[in-house]
């Protein structure tokens, strides 16, 4: 019968489409599979075991590693430091990047020079930035303490004083992430139509009013994106910690990913570190979901 004939044909065609679809996706699927899904599953598997010095699973530990995560003397302080770090870096980066973007979002002669300058930290790797800041932070030969000395103030232990070290690392991180976020926000600003500003001006809105009532609402999808990426980035900060402080002094900058690295590699406790990684995964997942849920209402999609 013609209908079933057509149905079979359609079914065959849809199978062919699925196959070719998978074919197209296969490079991406394979890469995601090898570098994302497999490590994820393996991490989950290892988190249930005690591992030896080679990182091989030797004894089944069940939930013992997870229990140890929450009772260890380092995990919770490390989580606290990470949250503090997020609070220090994310709002500051957004505010400064937005300020720079608003300032450069006008047609002036030579404005591209400023735009390029502000975006340039994007081209600096975490390692290079951290090495540079480490030189600036040095207690005796660093520029910061030299300047303090010139104006007659006592030097600060930028990276050696537990009360200051996290701030120093946060400063470095803000500097590093400014470039990219500036660029994204500037792109967002440029897509806001001029008519809206014009009509706001006709209504008598000053520049502050225009920023709060026009720019920010229309920029909200970009701000949401920037916010989520920054939070995830701050949870994953590693390079600058490794170079600046190695988690010290006294654990003051021992961010969660650095803590996991320490346990997995230098301390050879891959099982325990995997459990920490799974916990971190869940935390970031929940945080991102919350961010979506709470800010979505405020986000204005044009």
């Amino acid at each position, binding site marked *: 019968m013609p209908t079933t004939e057509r149905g079979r044909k359609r079914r065959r065609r849809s199978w062919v489409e699925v196959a070719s679809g998978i*074919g197209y996706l296969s490079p991406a699927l394979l890469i995601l599979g090898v570098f994302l899904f497999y490590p994820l599953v393996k991490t989950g598997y290892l988190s249930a075991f005690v591992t030896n*010095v080679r990182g091989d699973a*030797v*004894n089944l530990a069940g939930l013992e590693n997870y229990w140890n995560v929450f009772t260890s003397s380092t995990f919770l302080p490390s989580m606290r430091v990470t949250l503090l770090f997020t609070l220090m870096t994310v709002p500051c980066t957004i505010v400064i990047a937005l300020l720079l973007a608003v300032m450069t979002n006008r047609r002036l002669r030579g404005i591209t020079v400023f735009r390029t300058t502000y975006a340039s930290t994007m081209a600096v790797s975490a390692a290079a930035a951290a090495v540079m800041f480490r030189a600036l932070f040095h207690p*005796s*030969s660093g520029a910061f303490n030299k300047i303090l000395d010139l104006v007659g103030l006592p030097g600060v232990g930028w990276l*050696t004083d537990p009360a200051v070290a996290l701030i120093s690392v946060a400063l470095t991180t803000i500097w590093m992430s400014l470039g990219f976020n500036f660029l994204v926000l500037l792109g967002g600003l440029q897509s806001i139509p001029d008519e809206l500003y014009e009509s706001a001006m006709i209504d008598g809105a000053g520049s502050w009013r225009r920023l709060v009532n026009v720019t920010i609402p229309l920029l909200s999808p970009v701000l949401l994106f920037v916010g989520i990426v920054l939070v995830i980035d701050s949870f994953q900060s590693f390079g600058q910690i490794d170079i600046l402080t190695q988690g010290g002094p006294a654990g003051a900058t021992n961010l969660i990913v650095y803590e996991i690295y320490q346990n997995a590699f230098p301390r050879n406790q891959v099982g325990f570190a995997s459990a920490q990684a799974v916990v971190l995964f869940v935390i970031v997942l929940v945080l991102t979901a919350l961010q979506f849920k709470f800010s979505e209402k405020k986000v204005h999609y044009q």
Partner: protein
Amino acid sequence: MRRRTFSFAAAATAAGLTLSSCNGSSSAERGPNDEIIVTFWHSMRGNNAEQLEGFVQEFNDSQDDVRIDASFQGMYDEAQTKLMQLAGTKDAPDLMQLGSGAKREIIDSGIARPMQELVDAAGFDTSTIQPSILQSRQVDEMLHSMPQATSATVLFFNRELFEKGGLDPDDPPQTYSEIRDASQALVDSGLVDHGIAMLTDGGPFTDLMANQGELLYDHDNGRSGKPTTAIFNSHAGVETMTWIRDLHEDRLLANFGRSYDDLRPPWYTGDVAMILDTSAASIIHDGETDFEVGAGYVPVPDGVDPQGPTIGGADLWIFADSPEETQTAAFEFVDHLLSPDVQARWAAGTGYYPITTASYDEPALTTAMEEIESIRVANEQVGDTETTPASLGIIAGVTPSEYVADAWEQIYDGADPKDELDAAAKEVTGALESYNDAND
């Protein structure tokens, strides 16, 4: 049609990518002239790397059968992490220099070919090695690795500042109170910001403990059995940390953090008069300073007989996964590095002290000992070192360094030395327990 071919091609390429990472070779890798290629990883930087790679070049030029392919792979810890990830694959090295603290972990991982077997096969005479070094490297009375570079901590000081401050540079301070008085004199005279600096790291603490004959771990620092308990929170440990804390509180001792790269520059520029540093940096210091460098023994508490710091440095490891002939070839190079002549030039060119006793008869070393004070002092200090489990150092899967550094920083921040050392020792004991459980 074309589209479908493309997607199949993409899938096939991707599948090929995953399959191509297999390995397993039983015959040695050879170069164009049929020479055996030995991949050698090391952790030497700057001057010390130039010296080591110079010996590699010499060895390669001296014969046609073996070529050593040397590369820097990061500092000891980084390199060890890399090794553990790559062991068993074709990217792993055949021969590697690792910090002397890595012994227990590498042995337990089972990736090394016990050096003793290659020593016996080649008929290498281990009695040429300085007895204390040989003993420090032996585990269960055999060599699992070959000592290649040994160093000891020395008190480096700025002779000019000592003279200006009215101190005698030919009689450097050694006891805790002498160090304190000297620092006070230097700071009071306005010559320096701080008298002394040391790494805020396990290293100096370990040396200060060893120098007073104190153990860090039970079972003789892990030398008469696997260690189970950390005991560095002893009276001596607390006394030492209290001495350091008081120096820091009175602004006599500077805290530049955990890295040598931050410790050395202030000493080079004369902001600090004394630093505790490894003798292996003697030649580096000689090049970086424009003042006369003095050297003294590691500090010791008042009234205690100094026994010498730990025997630090690096060992060479050969790996079981490498083909037999590559292992033999690697050992030829190890043998070369241990010849009295090479050891003497290595010691003279870096500040490490020689492994082989006969190196002390070589003019290269005797001249360097006359010319460079820190090399002379380091070697004299070795001569005076007692061979006890304290100075031989720990053999353990857990190093106390980081835990001690954390405690140390808490103490600088105002915490009580005893409480912090107790807490650190408890953490280390816990880590030792889990290590022993997982690596039987």
